[in-house]
């Protein structure tokens, strides 16, 4: 059962001089157990799309349905949608308000009336899923390191046990170790059966980790599909603000020479292919 956004359009500041169209008839699907990346330049509409998935925004035209039921604005239904689709904003640690990590993580589930033992179970589950040290539960969230704060912020959304997790630039501001841990965590979340949507301007990370990619440019869909397919398309038709990772360009050059390597592949794979190729035609001396 997927989230389906069907042909949605949206504009900000309608009716004022600052009116700006953010989405133009974009369609999007994410299944449970799947990792979809939405990539595009700043202002391409990718964050606006993310905010439609949990009904923070309602489309001007088109529709969003969650697991087959069309989501309509109205406080009852949109609250249900918000629990099923957890949305993690960019720099989510800036929403902290509680004095302890525990209270911060309890916030979301308790807003839906979860209490007592069930609440504790929610918190424990979120803490272990996000790889957070349980000893930190009673500490002050503001006193943690950057990477730990990001985990607490994501755990605080996971704690409401959503079926989908939508993250806006989740790796922004993290160092290399922090990014690796986060990517690992998100793969775990996906493997546990949640639908993961990652909004990012980093084509490289989208190509390496996601199952499918949607590319937006100026509010419109440019291409969508598997990383391999999307990479092929962007090499042939450059998209504003998206840089083809050098290794993908390298793989493309190898393919043009007739080597059988996928566009998205490991370094070892390419080196092996080059070795075989060189072995076969020993004509170019050193």
């Amino acid at each position, binding site marked *: 059962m997927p989230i389906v956004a069907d042909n949605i359009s949206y504009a*900000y*500041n309608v009716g004022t*001089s600052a009116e700006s169209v953010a989405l133009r008839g974009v369609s999007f699907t994410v299944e449970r157990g799947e990792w979809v990346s939405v990539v595009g330049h700043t202002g391409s509409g990718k964050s606006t799309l993310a*905010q439609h998935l*949990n009904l*923070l*925004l*309602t489309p001007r035209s088109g529709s969003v349905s969650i697991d087959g039921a069309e989501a309509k604005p109205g*406080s009852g239904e949109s*609250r249900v949608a*918000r*629990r099923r689709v*957890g*949305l993690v*904003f960019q720099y*989510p640690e*800036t*929403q*902290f*308000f509680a004095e302890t990590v525990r209270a911060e993580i309890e*916030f*979301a*589930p308790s*807003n*839906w009336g979860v209490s007592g033992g069930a609440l504790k179970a929610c918190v424990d589950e979120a803490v272990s899923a996000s790889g957070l040290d349980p000893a930190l539960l009673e500490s002050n969230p*503001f006193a943690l390191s950057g990477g730990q704060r990001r985990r607490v912020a994501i755990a*605080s*959304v996971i704690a*409401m046990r959503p079926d989908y997790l939508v993250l806006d630039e989740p790796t922004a501001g993290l160092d290399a170790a922090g990014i690796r841990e986060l990517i690992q965590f998100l793969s775990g979340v996906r493997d546990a059966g949640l639908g993961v949507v990652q909004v990012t301007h980093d084509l490289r990370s989208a190509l390496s980790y996601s199952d499918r990619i949607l590319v937006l440019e100026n509010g419109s869909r440019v291409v969508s599909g598997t990383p391999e397919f999307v990479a092929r398309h962007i090499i042939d038709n450059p998209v504003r603000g998206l840089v083809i990772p050098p290794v993908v360009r390298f793989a493309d050059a190898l393919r043009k020479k007739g080597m059988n390597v996928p566009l998205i592949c490991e370094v070892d794979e390419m080196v092996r292919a080059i070795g075989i190729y060189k072995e076969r035609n020993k004509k170019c001396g050193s």
Partner: protein
Amino acid sequence: MRFMSAPSIGQFIPGESFIHGLDPRCKIVATVILMTGLFMASGIPDFLLWFCLLLLCSALSGIKLGVILRSGRPVLFLVLVTVVMNLLWTPGTELARLGPLRITREGVLLASSMGLRLLFLVIFAGMLMMTTSPMAFSDGLERIMSPLSLLRFPTSEMAMMMTIALRFIPTLFEETDRILKAQISRGADFESGGILRRARSFIPILVPLFVLVFQRAENLAVAMESRCYVPGARRSRMNPLKWRGRDSSALAGLALFVVFAIFCDRYLFKAILAWLAMR
């Protein structure tokens, strides 16, 4: 929907018009004169004159009338309350009666003039902010207040604070919108429950906002320091304020208008009305 959008008041609209080019001191003094004049206005015909002035301002600033009028929007509710209060609680000649509520002739007059006065006040203040860059505005204010610095009043620091405050209004509204959306995404509910519960529900908005503002302030202070800002030290200006002939003429013209408007309101319109009544 954007939950919080920056108010249109306080937003500078860059331009090169006559009004944009006036000295900020001229515009600040002009706004004070206009406000004084508005407090003396009382009759509906008088407000027609003021409206004509607004049309003139629109032409001289190159800003559309609709955009200028929109700066009155934030106070519409206040205006409405003022109008209703005056309409219902002014004693005098009865015009209509609805149960215990009496609407009087005096009430209608007072309500309309109070409402219009408030609206015009805000719109003219908005006009000042729309045509004056925040930096020029605080420069102007600093110079107007400069006699106070003799009394050790920190006018230049005050002006710098104002520049920064104005600069951060749009940013803070954006941040508030983001925090609000993030907490709603975590199930925050601002609509149900009693007053106490609702008040408590704003803690998850206010705490992050305060944290953010303090962080911003700290970072900004470091950035300003690294850009050689020393509080209280003498600064120069890229565009030093220059009082020109047209500033004097604009101010004189405006003063004449206000005197004329008050004269009309006090004598001319009354005389015309009296004359019409005699016929």
